[in-house]
């Protein structure tokens, strides 16, 4: 019931209420892991569902994520880092030549809210930077987006470059963005396509899930 209240406060985008509820539960010696999983993450999952069925829109998702982070910042220092990292690291970025990143930011929020560690490379990211980051960070997933038909082929360049550097087997590549689809993902040799932020989370779970 207590966790449900936190979940509801996240869905209702109430930053202060989330803080109060989380603080109260921590005082009552409830486990931070449980607060995160059953309250905060459950809330963001519901937000993702509402976004998928068009009931929630970009502003609601971003405001709900603020409420999520308000709670997350309180519980995360209390959770052993080992546990946090277990779910795996994800590198995310918008390909070179493309400077629209709101969609990518929403996917990032949803992935973080699902417990993944996300390294954000930003927008207009050159192919070499994607590849270098994969070498350095050793992520389980590389997520890329493109918003224009003119830049989506850059994703193929990244996949090819990973193959060339013999890194392709070490990382799963997923893609998203307005001009791409499942078929395009297959064509360029990516491992999957996510239609929206919720789909991206399900995709990641299917690819590297527990």
């Amino acid at each position, binding site marked *: 019931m207590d966790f449900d209240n936190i979940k509801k406060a996240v869905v209702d985008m109430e930053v202060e209420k989330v803080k109060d509820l989380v603080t109260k539960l921590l005082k009552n010696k409830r486990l931070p892991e449980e607060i995160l999983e059953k309250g905060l993450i459950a809330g963001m999952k519901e937000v993702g569902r509402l976004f998928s069925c*068009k009931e929630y*829109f970009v*502003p609601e998702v971003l405001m709900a994520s603020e409420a999520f982070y308000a709670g997350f910042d309180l519980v995360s220092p209390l959770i052993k880092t080992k546990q946090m990292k277990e779910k795996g690291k994800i590198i995310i970025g918008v390909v070179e*030549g493309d400077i*629209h990143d709101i969609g990518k930011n929403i996917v990032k929020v949803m992935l973080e809210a699902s417990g993944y560690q996300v390294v954000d490379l930003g927008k*207009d990211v050159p192919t070499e930077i994607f590849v270098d980051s994969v070498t350095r960070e050793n992520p389980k997933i590389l997520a890329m987006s493109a918003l*224009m038909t*003119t830049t989506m082929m850059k994703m193929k360049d990244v996949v090819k470059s990973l193959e060339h550097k013999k890194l392709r087997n070490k990382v799963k590549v997923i893609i998203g963005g307005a001009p791409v689809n499942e078929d395009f993902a297959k064509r360029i040799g990516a491992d999957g396509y996510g239609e929206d932020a919720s789909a991206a989370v399900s995709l990641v779970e299917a690819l590297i899930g527990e």
Partner: protein
Amino acid sequence: MPTVTIKNFGKFYIKGRKTLLDFLVDKNIPINASCGGRGRCGLCRVRIQKPPPPNDIEALLISEKLLKNDYRLACQKQTSEDIELFMPKVKAKKTAKKEGFGLALDLGTTTIKAGLVDLKSGKIKDKTTVFNPQNSLGGDVMTRISAAVEGKYKQLRESLLFGIEIAKEKIGIAKPIFTTVVGNPVMLSFYLNKPVSGLSRYPFRSAIKESTFLKNPTRYVFPIIGGFVGGDTIGGILASNKYQREGIFLYIDLGTNGEIAVIKKDKIVALSAAAGPAFEGVGISSGSLAVAGAIDRITYNKGFRFRTINNKKPIGICASGLIDLLALLLNLGWLQEDGRLIKKIEIDGFGINQDDIRKLQLAIGAIHTGIEVLLAKLGVKPSEIKEAILTGEFGSSLNLESLTKTGLLPNGIKQLRFEPDLPLQGAIMVLLGNDALERVEKIKKLSEHLELALEPDFQKKFVSNLKLTSWS
């Protein structure tokens, strides 16, 4: 007092300001001119003793050989200084049917617009619109750029030129003596046979920047401002006649990209906002382009009332109708400001769903953010806007109340002017006179281009502007 000397004929003193052509006509000296002295036909050639270097128009309309032999255009020479010339040689008049006609073109992504002008009288004879045949190779401009980069450049260019031929045929002119061309940077690049790859990705550099004069046949192509803000915007601002005036003016050309400019006397800032094709009706369940039969005005009085363009049987709802509908739904409480649709409605079988609303929110939010960023750049408040000048694919009329209720335009705009074809009007103005040509260069010089997505706090502003609410 300046003089004009015609060899073996006589010397004349000149009173007042006039061109050499005016002087020759006054003196009944035979000279050809089929464009009324506008510098568009190139027929009033005279040989001048030690002439100054040719101006752009002379370089365009006179062959290099004749230029070298000191030929210039009488209409381009002011008689404010002494001139010595040879008696003009007049050829027998050609019998071409439409001699003295000029053509203005607006090359848009979706449509090509054309205007036919009788240069002698200065009268617009006809206007027409045809679909850009490039549509069959992709609906939006980015898809066409990708196609061009992947090897279909020639096909796209030929397809555009074919569209222009169709427009010429429809308007009834085979060989205009002068053609002026406005359009977005991508279309102008195709037209001038320049690469479009620079526009395929950030930082969006067009292969053309300055104006271009072309010979055989004689053509003038507008310069561009920057990014995706092209000669069409310069043409529209020229036709609006609102630069270098007292007051603040807002200019919006709505299509797939919304080109927005704010004009503050000697300063013009402009950008393009990626509004998506929603305003052209694409991706909207009941959407339509602003063509005959499109619902373009909706009101509510115990039920929805609507009007269609040309009173034809309704085929869908165009941008102005969609904006009216959103405003009405907000007023009725059937739509929340956050975009959540409370009550489903239908007008003569045409409805609007939650997904449609989301797409329109993105389009309106993009325009709203563009306006906000430009006003901030010039340090101007929305209430200072004297007039908003709108052009493009909205509909056939616009309702200021609906535009402000949905947040597409800010509150406090004193006047709204809507004309669907301002860029074409700009091209027509250049057909009609040289001062328009100078003003094009002036507008280009005064204009600064901004990249919206790179403005500080763009995401924050855009996200909060997704709310369907009035602002100021």
